[in-house]
């Protein structure tokens, strides 16, 4: 029998993998994809709770998370394109003009 805990542990693991990807990798594309991993884990949490508590609101929120994630990916990739055009690199360590 698959309980709610199974799904929650799986989405916690997905979220943790996304956190590792955002913090460790320096390629901007991979950082954006790890961000999507974190959002995917959160989506799984919402849908699992929606199922086990019998309420549809969790899935409504998942729809809105997907909308925001798609918009964020579009803008993030546009920033990547502009960055590559200006500096020729997508290494996040090189984007340090605002570093004090």
């Amino acid at each position: 029998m698959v309980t709610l805990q199974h799904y929650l542990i799986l989405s916690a693991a997905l979220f943790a993998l996304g956190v590792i990807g955002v913090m460790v990798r320096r390629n901007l594309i991979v950082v954006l994809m790890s961000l999507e991993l974190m959002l995917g884990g959160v989506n799984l949490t919402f849908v699992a709770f929606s199922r086990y508590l019998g309420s549809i609101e969790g899935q409504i929120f998942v729809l809105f998370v997907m909308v925001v994630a798609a918009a964020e990916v579009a803008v993030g990739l546009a920033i990547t394109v502009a960055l590559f055009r200006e500096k020729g690199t997508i290494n996040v360590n090189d984007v340090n003009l605002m570093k004090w």
Partner: protein
Amino acid sequence: METLMFYILAAITLMSAFFVISLSRPVHNVLFMILTMIGLAGLFALLHAEFIAMVQLIVYAGAVMVLFLFVIMLLNLDDLRLPNQPTPVRWLMGAVIALLVVIMLVPVIRALAPTAAPAAAVGVTNTESLATALFTTYLLPFEIASVLLLAAIIGAVILARHKSPED
């Protein structure tokens, strides 16, 4: 049967997610991300959320990841191997912090009593119950979401266009 499907899909999703963050060529990362999204869609279908599963396949695996591939191919980022891949020390620090994040979640997960899922509702499809709630109670966030998408489109076009000489 459901338990077996859950473990298979969970294994696929976690393995692909691990490859997403660890491989060195961006194209490989994107391909494994597509596999992760397919695994997640399977998990949504297992949770009787068929509409969400299909939307996940169309939006995430079909649009967002293809957008990633476009950008990688357009800018020829696949050849741009970053020198000195993250050192093992950096991986270890990342793993420790992620472990701390998960440890914070463990008491919450254990506090919930393990129950079986309630019986799936018959007669009302997932799409119908979603639509009933989305277009009555949550109509305003729905309209705001379309304005948000419009803002994102305009922002992405402005950010990524070529600067003409007279700008």
